């Protein structure tokens, strides 16, 4: 009985061994290294740089000193500014400027004042720290001149395709400082009405 059991077990194991003992499948030869290309470096793409992202947006003037020649026979002098001035710089190189402010100073002991109101549209460009207001394309701005006598003159601004005003400007995100060689100085704060996300 033992020998029969052992013989059957041997036979069964042999069958298992034969069935499990299949040889590995044939496979291809390894690919040569030259057939395994590596990623190639691509020259970086570039695109024409647009206008300053920092200036684009809406700004409100928080402090300003303007230089103005009040009388035709006097020298230009600094004027304090009060009221509301806003700028909106667009990425297409245009800006709108809404004004409702007063310039005040003293001339020979008398207070002089200019009331300014209206909306203007200009073109702008920035190169380094120089901003150029290239053209005054539309305006309805009105200047009213006052001295100790009262209103002495009213001027309505006209468009000017060759405005060409160049100032020095420094934008630090939430704040802009603008100035020029004549003594003009202005500080702006960013507002959320245009150009701000979220």
């Amino acid at each position, binding site marked *: 009985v033992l020998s029969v059991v052992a013989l059957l077990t041997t036979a069964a194991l042999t069958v298992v061994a034969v069935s499990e003992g299949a040889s590995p499948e044939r496979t291809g030869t390894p690919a040569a290294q030259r057939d395994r290309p590596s990623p*190639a470096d691509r020259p970086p793409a570039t695109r024409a740089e647009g206008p300053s992202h920092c200036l684009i947006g809406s700004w409100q003037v928080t402090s300003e000193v303007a230089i103005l020649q009040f009388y035709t026979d006097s020298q230009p002098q600094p004027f304090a500014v009060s009221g509301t001035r806003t700028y909106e710089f667009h990425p297409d190189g245009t800006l709108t400027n809404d004004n409702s402010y007063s310039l005040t100073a003293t001339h020979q002991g008398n207070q002089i004042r200019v009331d300014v109101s209206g909306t203007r549209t200009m073109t702008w460009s920035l190169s380094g720290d120089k901003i150029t207001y290239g053209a005054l394309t539309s305006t309805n701005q009105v200047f009213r001149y006052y001295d100790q006598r009262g209103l002495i003159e009213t001027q309505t601004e006209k468009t000017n395709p060759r405005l060409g005003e160049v100032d020095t400007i420094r934008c630090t995100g939430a704040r802009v400082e603008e100035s020029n060689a004549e003594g003009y100085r202005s500080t702006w704060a960013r507002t959320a009405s245009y150009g701000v996300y979220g």
Partner: protein
Amino acid sequence: MRPFALLLCGGLVLFGATPAAAAPSSPEERAAAIARPAVVFVEVDWQGWVRDPRTGEVFGGAEGYRTTTSCSGVVVHEDGRVLTAGHCVDPGPFGGGGALIDLAIAELTELGRVRDPEKAAAQLAEHAVVEGEKTGSGPLRDIRVTRVVGDGDSSDNPGTDVAPATVTELMEPEAGDVALLKVPRTGLPALTLADEDDRPAGTPILAIGFPASVGRATDPSTEPTNKNGQISARRSLDGKPYYEISAAASQGMSGGPLVDMDGRVLGLVTAAPAGETQSFNLATASTSALELLRGNGITPGPGAIDRNFNAGLTHYFDGDYAEAVEFFDAVLAATPDHRQAQEYRARAEEHGSGGPGLLVILIVVCGGIAVLSGAAATILLARRRRADRDLPTPPMGIPMPVTGTPEDTTP
């Protein structure tokens, strides 16, 4: 002696089926051993500009924004077909475009032009266009697929094979989130995709991939990570089947395979629900990937190399080390840099592949028992016949039955 020998032979047969020496320590070990050779690291270099069509403003300056995103993937055909998550290579806001938008948000935040970064990202994702160097062109995308190869012990053998990849087909993140890539390679380890999407909750799974956080916390490595867990539920999103899984799957594991304990791909890790910090992730079911592959005339599945490797693993875990070495050698002959074949071949050799296999030992032992017991039976039979010849012959020549010693039969 007889019962002992029977027990010995039977016991050997029983134990022979489950040798303890190399059996996997867990079902996950076996699944990982099968699956890991086919898991790849997918990196994408993006360059692009973000344009807001409402204003015409283009963010990114002259050089554009550049970023690199990383994901995981799985080879599904030995001729270089790789699956990953769609959002890994998608240029839209849920993919690389989103990463570029994030860079724009960061720049705009520094400029004071962002009040709420999340809302800003949502606004740009809805309204902005991510472009290449020309208006209307897509962002630039360079895809690299990295495989773990060899042991990385020298400069000649860096331990990785980096291949450029192209996108053959893309199911967008909102419509299945699967991408089919092609790399210029052949003879790659590949996995089988399960042709079903109804595995029940509780099915044990492994999510395998390259989590970005590990890469940041440790030395650079291309060793994939296994995260075990279960299928928590079957879900659908816009008609596409998904699995909700309990396996942890962090950023970077997107596109990595979700495998069962047989190493078959059940799905691809796709996303974690927004704001979810616990082990709760989604994987797009493999049927979506199969649909995409079949649509491109590709029949996925393991090749001869994989079948040899899997047979080698089976022999290894069954304790048939010599057979295992034979199969691993066949794998290495076709792909000398197959790291897992190298590892398991070495382990098989440590277990003593030079000697006969356990099955051969069993056959020899049982055969020996059969021969010895047969010989013993023959000797006993011969002795009995000799004794029978010495008995008095009764009439008709029929031997008397032996009931005792010959002397007992004498009247």
